[in-house]
């Protein structure tokens, strides 16, 4: 608990309470710069823009950043999808380990301890799905003829995500997309939490480009991703305005993207997510081959 209070004190850049007026610390803290996460790197917005959130200057992503992130996600996709399911599961588990190790940072950002717990547990849950989802959703089909016929799920491709606020929500939209072999471009709310999570991904053997995180205003960038021809699916879980969700879904229709709609009453991320967050981002491929001597 003491560590968290101290952490909060380090974070404050401007005196906001009498506490900060107490005698100066022995050394001046080194602050974090909140940047974007694209292709495994942490660039500033190409636009040079930032916006202030809780006293921090945070990168304000532009449409060009969004497009760059799609390029990175596309480049990473075949390799990530081609990794073994066992490997993807271990990488996701590693993300959980790194998140566990950084609990204090999230606590310092005001994320409740039980939410950090739930986010870690959700990552472990999804990590285990990597080599099981194909057995649950695929299998042999008993066709009426001398054919071997088998269906298996494959990733949809590049998924653009308008993420909900909060660590658990963020993890709950990213994990199902990447465990199934997709790569993502995530428009994050709550930028400090999102960038800190990006640092978790960056230190977890997740190949660069598999998860890309953009901070900024999703109403500005999401339309460019919704209509982007190299994006295969659009997750609108974090969109709060009904009208905007409808507009984005309409834009997505231009290239027939798979769309996850925001649920009417908001999503309860503490509940069992079920399979849909994964299956919506999977394609079923069915292969036929004749049997014979």
């Amino acid at each position: 608990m003491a560590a968290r209070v101290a952490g909060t004190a380090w974070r404050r850049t401007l005196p906001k309470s009498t506490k900060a007026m107490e005698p100066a610390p022995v050394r001046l803290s080194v602050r974090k710069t909140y940047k974007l996460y694209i292709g495994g790197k942490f660039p500033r917005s190409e636009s040079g823009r930032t916006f202030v959130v809780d006293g921090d200057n945070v990168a304000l992503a532009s449409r060009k950043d969004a497009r760059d992130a799609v390029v990175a996600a596309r480049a990473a996709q075949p390799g990530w999808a081609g990794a073994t399911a066992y490997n993807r599961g271990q990488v996701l588990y590693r993300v959980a380990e790194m998140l566990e190790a950084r609990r204090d940072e999230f606590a310092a950002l005001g994320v409740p301890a039980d939410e950090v717990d739930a986010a870690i547990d959700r990552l472990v849950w999804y990590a285990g799905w990597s080599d099981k989802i194909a057995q649950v959703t695929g299998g042999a089909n008993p066709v009426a003829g001398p054919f071997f016929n088998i269906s298996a799920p494959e990733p949809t491709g590049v998924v653009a995500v308008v993420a909900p606020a909060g660590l658990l929500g963020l993890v709950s939209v990213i994990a199902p997309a990447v465990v199934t072999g997709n790569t993502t471009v995530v428009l994050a709310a709550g930028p400090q939490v999102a960038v800190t999570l990006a640092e978790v991904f960056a230190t977890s053997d997740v190949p660069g480009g598999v998860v890309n995180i953009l901070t900024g205003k999703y109403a500005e960038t999401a339309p460019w991703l919704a209509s982007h021809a190299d994006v295969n699916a659009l997750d609108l879980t974090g969109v709060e305005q009904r009208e905007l969700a409808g507009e984005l879904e309409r834009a997505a229709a231009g290239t027939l993207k798979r769309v996850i709609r925001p649920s009417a009453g908001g999503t309860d991320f503490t509940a069992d997510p079920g399979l849909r967050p994964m299956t919506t981002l999977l394609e079923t491929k069915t292969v036929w081959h004749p049997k014979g001597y």
Partner: protein
Amino acid sequence: MFEYAPAPESRSVVDIADSYGLFIDGDFASPKDGSVFKTVNPATEEVLAEVASAGTEDVDRAVAAARRAFTGWSALPGAERAKYLFRIARIIQERSRELAVLESLDNGKPIKESRDVDLPLVAAHFFYYAGWADKLAYAGFGPDPRPIGVAGQVIPWNFPLLMLAWKIAPALATGNTVVLKPAETTPLSALFFADVCRQAELPPGVVNIVTGAGDTGAYLVAHPGVDKVAFTGSTEVGREIARTVAGTGKRLTLELGGKAANIVFDDAPIDQAVEGIVNGIFFNQGHVCCAGSRLLVQESIAEELLTSLKRRMTTLRVGDPLDKNTDIGAINSAAQLARITELSEIGGAEGAERWSPACQLPERGFWFAPTIFTGVTQAHRIAREEIFGPVLSVLTFRTPAEAVEKANNTPYGLSAGVWTEKGSRILAIADKLRAGVVWANTFNKFDPASPFGGYKESGYGREGGRHGLEAYLA
């Protein structure tokens, strides 16, 4: 080629009325504004019947009937719903010759195909989903899967009754009720299906059939009383429907166009591959969304393969769909013939080399000789756009990586074929093809237990198999 005497299937097995109304709430009714359209036999241009054109009030009535019926139908024990579907499957089997002849008359497809492919698959589809109706809790969609409500379904003209079966069987098995709009040029088998429903004593309103053109379909999918939309047809119309549905909360599945690559490696058994290529592109006059319309042949065997393919094409019999020896029937409509003709002319104009076997086409009706284009590049429109006719574009490749690259170089992703004797190559190529169905050393095989549907702009959702239930469960 041997000269065969004509061997026509008798039309006397089917009795087509002069006119048909809309099937709403268990009865045939005239359209409110009295408007009708004619459906013709594309092989002769003879008018087969006058069919009601459903207007907005008619669709309103059909949706209302489906809504009323939903309460009772969804509350029936699954085992009872199953028995209705089993009845329907049996009646279709009993009436299959009649329905096959009807389908060939209205659609133009060879009787050989309507009799041996379409109708057996239609009956099998109802039989398959009938069995699911009381087992939904075991389907992997949660312990208590619920129906969605009223399904608005719009189907194409290439497999009229089969597409109806793909739409109606899973919808009914899961406890939904439906309003289905068949294609404007092929409404008759859906109207005969209405009679099958009556024979099965299906409760009124569970299945409603509204005939009409595109605006009837557009009104149906936009209808606020519809909870789920299912569409099979062109990618262009699919996009429009996705836009219409956006923001409404309606569930949507789309099965759209394709431009499938059929990849032939140098170690493929040539004769089998040629049969597969012919089946891939000339089956059903090429009016198949998953047709193997792009042949990718390994350069080293291209000449040998094309020689065999051309020889085989000279033996294809084009003509009377009711003749039991016919391989290629009539093009479904004048409009489709115009589209095939236009794209083929563009193929020639863009520099590809066109070839068709010498074949005599009937004077009346809509016909197009089986055609291949060689020297096609990936930039040619005939390599990019869906022609939906008996026209094959031939491209070559040198390495497996190049074959995969070319095969996936399309916004579509419905199906693909691969021909090689090497098992490990089949599996590696199948993994890399971005397509929902991959036929290896075979092509155009369908089964109710086998999920079917596309990647990318070929649509979303699957029809067939356990997967096909998901589209109709809340």
